[in-house]
């Protein structure tokens, strides 16, 4: 039985539909990555799982137990690290951990033992007794991770744990999470970084507009695309007119799809081919029309391609699209208890 089952979750904030029929299963012991652009409903999903939010409809089962009917039991099994880190700046890190231990009803000796271990594992010794108001972003994130781990939950839920972190802090957190997962802990992590999900997770789902659009292992998803990505340049620095011309030309070929003129790469052309056999045909077609091929490269598809394939846009474009539309201050206000 999977550790977590989310079934047909629906959630609206007023007129905004955040989740429309989202279903997920998270196997015991897996490292599950939830990939989706800004505003796709990642946080909403995780908040529902952690009993902070009630769905309009749908079911949440953790270890076979109904989370909506019996939230208290579920809470003690989950360690939740929220996206926005709220810490009490005037407390020291240690005091925050003690508070957490007490809220999860740990016995005092055990609590102190846990704190000691976590300080060691997360290398917090130098600053844990300083007030947390003085911590850097990386320190805060580590402290937050420690609070999520205090009570040794069955499931660790992380909402974009490395967003805004420098590369070094990110690497530290990544290796720690990998180790935890190796030790048998089930981890559910949301992210809008492809590399993060690709690097860490063994199971993943891509969500878009509040529903799951693809699910499997990262490799499966890429393989299932059944095609390779090709970058084509007709000259080193082309221009828009030429790019469009070539696009029109090759669009007609069989076994080749999703042609995009990539302005950032000197108007080179990006597209997918089902088999490598297409390339010689392409070459001769172009030559016939009087185009040289300056460079052509074929590569395995990325998760971005998986997203592109199902939605017709890249993750980056999806992010930019919503970025201007959302009023984050208003959302924060509205999600206040």
């Amino acid at each position, binding site marked *: *039985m999977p550790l977590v089952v989310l079934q047909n979750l629906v959630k609206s904030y007023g007129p905004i539909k955040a989740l429309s029929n989202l279903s997920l299963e998270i196997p015991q012991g897996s490292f599950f990555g939830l990939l989706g652009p800004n505003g796709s409903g990642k946080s909403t999903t995780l908040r529902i799982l*952690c*009993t*902070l939010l009630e769905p309009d409809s749908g079911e949440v089962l953790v*270890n*076979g*137990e109904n989370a909506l009917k*019996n939230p*208290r*039991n579920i*809470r*003690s*099994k*989950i360690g*939740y690290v*929220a996206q*926005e880190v*709220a*810490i*009490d700046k*005037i*407390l020291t890190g240690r*005091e925050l951990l*003690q*508070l*957490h231990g*007490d*809220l*999860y*009803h740990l016995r005092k000796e055990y609590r102190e033992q846990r704190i000691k271990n976590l300080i060691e594992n997360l290398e917090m010794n130098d600053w844990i007794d300083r*007030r947390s108001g003085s911590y850097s972003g990386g320190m805060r994130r580590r402290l937050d991770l420690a*609070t999520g781990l205090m009570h040794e939950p*069955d499931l660790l839920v992380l909402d974009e744990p490395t967003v805004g972190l420098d590369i070094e802090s990110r690497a530290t957190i990544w290796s720690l999470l990998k180790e935890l997962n190796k030790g048998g802990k089930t981890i559910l992590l949301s992210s809008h970084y492809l590399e993060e999900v690709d690097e860490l997770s063994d199971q993943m789902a891509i969500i878009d507009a509040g529903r799951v659009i693809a699910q499997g292992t990262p490799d499966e998803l890429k393989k299932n695309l059944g095609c390779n990505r090709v970058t084509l340049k007709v000259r080193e620095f082309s221009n828009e007119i030429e790019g469009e011309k070539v696009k029109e030309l090759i669009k007609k070929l069989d076994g080749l799809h999703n042609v995009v003129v990539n302005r950032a790469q000197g108007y080179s052309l990006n597209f997918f081919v089902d088999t490598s056999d297409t390339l010689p045909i392409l070459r001769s077609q172009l030559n016939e029309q009087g185009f040289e091929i300056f460079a052509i490269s074929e590569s395995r598809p990325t998760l971005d391609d998986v997203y592109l394939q199902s939605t017709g846009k890249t993750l980056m474009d999806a992010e930019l699209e919503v970025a201007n539309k959302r009023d984050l201050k208003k959302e*924060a*206000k509205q999600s*206040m*208890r």
Partner: protein
Amino acid sequence: MSKTFSPSSSGFSLENNKLEFLEIRQEVFALTRRLFLQLYRRPSTLVAGILQPLIWLVLFGALFENAPSNLLPGGIVYGKFLGAGIIVFTAFSGALNAGLPVMFDREFGFLNRLLVAPLRSRSSIVIASVIYIATLSILQSFVIMGAAFSLGYGFPNFYGVLLVLITLLILVFGVTALSLGLAFVLPGHIELIAVIFVANLPLLFASTALVPISFMPPWLGWLAALNPLTFAIEPIRAAYSGSLDLGSVLIHAPYGEVTGYGCLLILTILTAGLFIAIRPLLNRKLT
């Protein structure tokens, strides 16, 4: 399948009850400790909560120092009369702040931390606030009592102190409930501070803290006689006067006479009413 222990609905056994009690105690203690740590490291609210009434006490006391000796009913000195009012005002304005920490926790998302934890009872959050603010405002009031004493305005005897304590506690509980309720209804701390600011002084002036009802025009007399602060001030004034007869009439209100017991009863009913009134609100916000 799930072999983790589940402290669930099934048991009414003694063991379970004891475990539940211990866990609630742990929660409440931890949450209260946090509030006191905040206070200890940022004592400005404590200090301000003492300074403001202290200034009132000194300035107002001095203002009327040379008033004719038969000005007040019973011919007591004004400072002694004023003392009871300022003590109640201190506790009142201290307790009005009860909602602020909760409001900040709502705004900054710290409350979410508490809500994802498997608290035995969400009331622990409320109980911690009540313990914290009651201790704080009673402490402030006793500092003011000390100040009044050193200004020569006297000090109640043992039973008097007990009466002061009980009266203040009832008042503080009620005001705390009110403030917590506001903290969950209002959209942000700016609004909460505005309400606190606006409520403070009018409630002081429209009570018997500064002058007796007999000094007031009828409309203000009515207000003062309905003002909950008055019901706390008069028993404490009685405690200071030394005649500790709660059966005697303490307020000559336009609508009738109220004894000391009457005052305490009305305060208690108000406080209980407020707690009942905010209950559904807290239930909604804390689940």
